[in-house]
């Protein structure tokens, strides 16, 4: 697999490069800014995936997220994995909001286990979506007392977790040793219990699940009203 990296922290970038090479991946490009990455990627010789930091020069704000949108518009088939230092659901939601396949949001901590990183890179390059397990886990933990979640069976609960992490029915089935058909049934059931609309589109259902998870339904007068996402 061929990978390009844009990460401004030199220490971490070198470690990441070395890790990927040792794991047998080919690092074709490794730069310190999103702008440089955009400039040096050649349309006729794209890597399978790019890894982006969020806070990078020039303004150290959200350059990585902006570059991710830009890259997906230019090269829709390119896998884009944002490697972030923040457990912010809002960043993941922003990345998924356009509804494009092949994007992912992973915590930088995952470099401690290259298999997770390799799996995420493989999935984004194959057009799947990836949301870090900690981001999903944090939302699920905050909602543990929620009555709607309490109504799910353990299997459905586990299915929901994998679903929010961006896995396909086939992927979930593999992890849970279930047939894709069974997974499909679990998904349909849990969507019904959570009052979520199933569109059948894997790319949309990840976003819908995350938005549902992050809004506290029991939190007052907003109950029953439209759940808003503040992000511009």
């Amino acid at each position: 697999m061929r990978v390009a990296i844009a990460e401004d922290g030199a220490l971490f970038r070198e470690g990441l490069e070395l890790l990927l090479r040792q794991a047998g991946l080919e690092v074709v490009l490794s730069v310190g800014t999103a702008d440089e990455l955009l400039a040096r990627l050649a349309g006729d010789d794209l890597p399978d995936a790019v890894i982006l930091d969020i806070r990078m020069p020039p303004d150290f704000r959200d350059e990585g997220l902006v570059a991710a949108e830009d890259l997906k518009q230019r090269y829709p088939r390119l896998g884009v994995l944002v490697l972030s230092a923040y457990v912010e659901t809002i960043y993941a939601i922003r990345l998924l909001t356009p509804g494009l396949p092949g994007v992912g949001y992973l915590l930088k901590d995952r470099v401690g286990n290259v298999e997770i990183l390799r799996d995420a890179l493989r999935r984004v390059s194959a057009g799947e979506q990836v949301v870090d397990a900690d981001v999903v886990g944090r939302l699920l933990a905050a909602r543990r007392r929620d009555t709607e979640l309490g109504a799910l069976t353990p299997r459905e609960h586990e299915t929901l977790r994998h679903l929010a992490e961006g896995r396909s029915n086939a992927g979930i089935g593999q992890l849970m040793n279930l047939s894709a058909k069974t997974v499909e049934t679990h998904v349909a059931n849990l969507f019904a219990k959570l009052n979520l609309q199933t569109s059948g589109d894997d790319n949309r259902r990840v976003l819908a699940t995350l938005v549902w998870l992050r809004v506290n339904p029991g939190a007052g007068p907003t109950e029953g009203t439209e759940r808003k996402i503040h992000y511009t």
Partner: protein
Amino acid sequence: MELRVIPRTPAGRTASAGLGRPAALVALVLGSGALALLCQWPALRSIPAQATLNTLVTMSYAATAGVGARSPGRRGTGPSLLLGAGLAWSATWAGFWEVGPIPALAFEVQPVFWILLLGAVLEYPTGRITERTERIFMAAVLVILPALLTANILTSRASWKAYHSDVWWPGVFPDRDAANVITVLTAAAALGLTGAFIVLLRQRLRRLPMVDRRVQGPTGLALAAAGICAFLTTVLGSHHAARCANPFYLAMAVALLGMPISIGIGELRRQLVRAAAAETLARLASPPTVESVQLALIEALGDETMTVLYRVPNPDSPDGPPADGTAVYVDGAGTPRHPPTAADRLLVPVTSGTGDEVALLVTDGALRRHEDLVGAALATAGFALENARLQAVLQYRLAAVRDSRTRIVETALAERRRLEQDLHDGAQQRLLAVAARIGIARIHAGEQTTAIDEASAELTAALGELRTLARGIYPAVLGEAGLAVALDAAMEDFPIPVAVEVAGDRFDAATETAAYLTVIDILTHAADRAGATRGTVRSWHQDNGLWLQIEHNGRAAGDGLLSAVDDRLRALDGALEPAPPRGAAPRAAPVGMDDPVVVTARIPCV
């Protein structure tokens, strides 16, 4: 404490000096009276009333000149001119002697009288005729009156003026028609000059400060009346030598007498104003305020432009004390002000008994001539000024402390952002580099991963704690996406469900950080210590303020937390408020909260 007043302009003589040495004054008045009587001795028998009035005019002018020459702040030749005018008035009546050239000379003294009198009035109170229009007027008088009267005498005979034909009379071109034309011209000149004088008087009264107006107004009116009488006598063809009493000349003498009388009244009123000023200041409310002292001084001095600047002892401005030791002055509100440098302002320092400068009185420059009044007012206002200074300086110091607190809190908020960035760029990056090395080690470890797994787990925990710490110091998402997003994100894994209704508007970094920390501090306490099980946060923009309303169903927070939150808000000119402002959108009670604890906060913003 005793208060001394030291005027900065030429040292003022005391008011009592205005009365002068009584003996010299009496001698001057009696001498002038004797001269006047000598001039019109023959007239005293034929027209006794007129001659008596004339003598009184001379004596009163001499008295006024004598007093005026000694009055404080008085300069110039005015008193001498007035004395001269008084003597000249009686001299014009010397024609009754009907001996040799005396009638002709007496006739020629008439323009001299008017010139001296007008000069004395117009040079008041500065000692110089400064206005261009007044100089032109004076020049016209100097040219027109002598020319017309000389022409009159040259074209007439003594008998036409009812003098004996044997007096010496320089009528070298006697001509009835020419004399008539000149009489008409003289009348026109008298009328024109009187009119011009009235116009000048109006302008002049507008220019003068109130205290001078009170003197100059009646004086000028008396003079204008005399001018009108002069016009009427000319028009009606009367002249001095008529052997019977002329009502217009009587009226003129009465009008001329009006001038010293009005000056006397003016002086009396000035004394009364001083007394009233002292009374006004003495009546000041106790304790006097900055405003009441200012108003009382304005009333006492009759100067609405007057301001008081208070000297700040040991100033410590944000920029440090002035290096050159220059004084720092503040106005009544405690705002630093520079004393004006314009020449038309009078600066009167007020010092305390110990010699410290207390205040600087900034008044109309015209009050230089009334330093006795200013001095009297300040002497009475001394304690009130000391008291007002304490208040003004307190305001100044409060403002300095407030500014300093704002800077401290703003610095602290900025420091939070910097600290978060430092953690992200420093410690966190190093730990992540270590994580990458562990990842590499894991690749080469084969099946023996137990130690690596343990190290990895420890590292993940450390990274998690560091992330929580950094986020608690300052959430990066706040600076990047604003209050609404940051609060939404913070409430994702908050211990209790919290409904967030916050608009997506952006504010400056300090405002957003303070608002964010207010919400987090109140709700964290509510969830962790006050037994709350749910909460709401609402914000809106109203009356140039960002308003926050935080509700929860726990117990109310103690004063410690609330005052800490309040202090941070107050440093940004905000505060915890007892209630939302009038006009805030009404809102239904939050679900599941019958009687919620409500905390309302306001932060100013544009």
